[in-house]
């Protein structure tokens, strides 16, 4: 039973053909790492899955529902698809707690005390329970990204999309974020990551998707694929990043 399904998805920016017929099937509980050079369409693919970008041909379904970029549809999707960004995008005028409580309160219409309970539990999960009343500005990049994860988790999504979420972090802060992801993977949350962290992709990920020139160039079990790439492009890519 697939949770996310992409069928022959094409995406154009004007004349630029960014995604050239993507087929991808993601099952519940999988940890998918999407790798590839910049400009290969990884982020665009991710953003199509939750309706942030339109696609022109093909079809995408999440949990059986078709994805379009219609406003209403994006809001419905938000209930099953969470997303974390490279630049955290925490709301600067809200405390950590308020950031996490916002969507449960005004989207899920939970009571304040219920939302607070959820927020505290999620912050506990990412190891930041004591930062509930701090403002994002006072946190390190790694801490901010963990709050962003807690904020996404508070909506209990079925899939969590991660768009290069460690790329803006100082090297010594990457580990704490990956550790949280690893724990989520163990709990069985479906993760789709656009990432440059090859070690993480190999050790935690269940499947790797290598994108090249807007196509899924090669995909397969993460350990096999990364240690024994079949195509020259992937060999080159792995050689370049490792």
């Amino acid at each position, binding site marked *: 039973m697939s949770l996310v399904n992409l069928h022959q998805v094409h995406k154009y920016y004007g004349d630029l053909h960014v995604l050239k017929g993507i087929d991808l099937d993601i099952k519940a509980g999988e940890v998918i790492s999407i790798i590839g050079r910049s400009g290969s369409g990884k982020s665009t693919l991710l953003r199509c899955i939750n309706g942030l970008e339109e696609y022109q041909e093909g079809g995408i379904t999440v949990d059986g529902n078709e994805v379009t970029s219609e406003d209403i549809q994006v809001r419905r999707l938000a209930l099953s698809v969470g997303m974390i960004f490279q630049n955290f995008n925490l*709301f600067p005028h809200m405390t950590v707690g308020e950031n996490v409580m916002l969507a449960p309160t005004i989207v899920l219409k939970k009571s304040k005390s219920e939302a607070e309970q959820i927020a505290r539990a999620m912050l506990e999960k990412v190891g930041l329970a004591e930062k509930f009343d701090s403002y994002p500005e006072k946190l390190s990049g790694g801490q901010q990204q963990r709050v962003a994860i807690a904020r996404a988790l508070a909506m209990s999504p079925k899939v969590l999309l991660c768009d290069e979420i460690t790329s803006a972090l100082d090297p010594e802060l990457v580990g704490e974020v990956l550790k949280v992801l690893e724990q989520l993977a163990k709990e069985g949350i479906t993760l789709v990551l656009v990432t440059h962290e090859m070690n993480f992709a190999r050790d935690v990920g269940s499947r790797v998707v290598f994108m090249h020139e807007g196509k899924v160039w090669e995909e397969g079990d993460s350990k096999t694929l990364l240690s024994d790439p079949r195509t020259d492009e992937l060999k080159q890519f792995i050689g370049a990043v490792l």
Partner: protein
Amino acid sequence: MLYFSDLLQYSDVFFSGLMTTVELTVLTTILGVALGTACATTRQYGNKASQRAVTVYVELIRNTPFIVQLFFIFFGLPALGMRLSPWEASMIALTINLGAYSTEIIRAGLGSISKGQIEAAKVLGLTFRQTLTRVIFVPAFEKIYPALTSQCIIVMLGSAVISQISVEDLTYAANLVQSRNFRAFESYLVTALLYLGLSILLRFAFNTLGKHLFTYRATR
């Protein structure tokens, strides 16, 4: 010799003029900023046609003298069957004027909010209206708050012009008093000081309000 004591018998005239100016300032500040917020939001996020309409309005007002706008509303509109009292005409002219200038200022604030903030709200399932009120407005207004409040004070000072259509504001009081007792120097000096005091008071009020609205900055 200066005769400030000659003004004392007119203190109630000054006071009532001052009150009219304060009343119009408070009212037009609220209405003007509301108008500016609506127009800035439209210009930043609205469709092409409504964006163009806002641009025309803003440029029309910013490139014509306030006194002409006021005269047009008070003396010109009756030709179209719209007869307004001096007070009403002034209120509308001041609001429209502040609305145009604050549109430009507020739009700069909205423009400073990154696309990422809006996307983050979107993927959490917020509607656009919720995104505006919960996510965009507070940080946007914080960025342009000093410019916006300065503009409100400029409009308060510019309101002196409405004495020209015989609204009995502070400047009207000054004109009246000096025409009665011929103490022009004293009348206008006192009036200037009253405007100055009003500006300082207004600035203080805006600062207090700002601290209340943007509490999160105080905890930095």
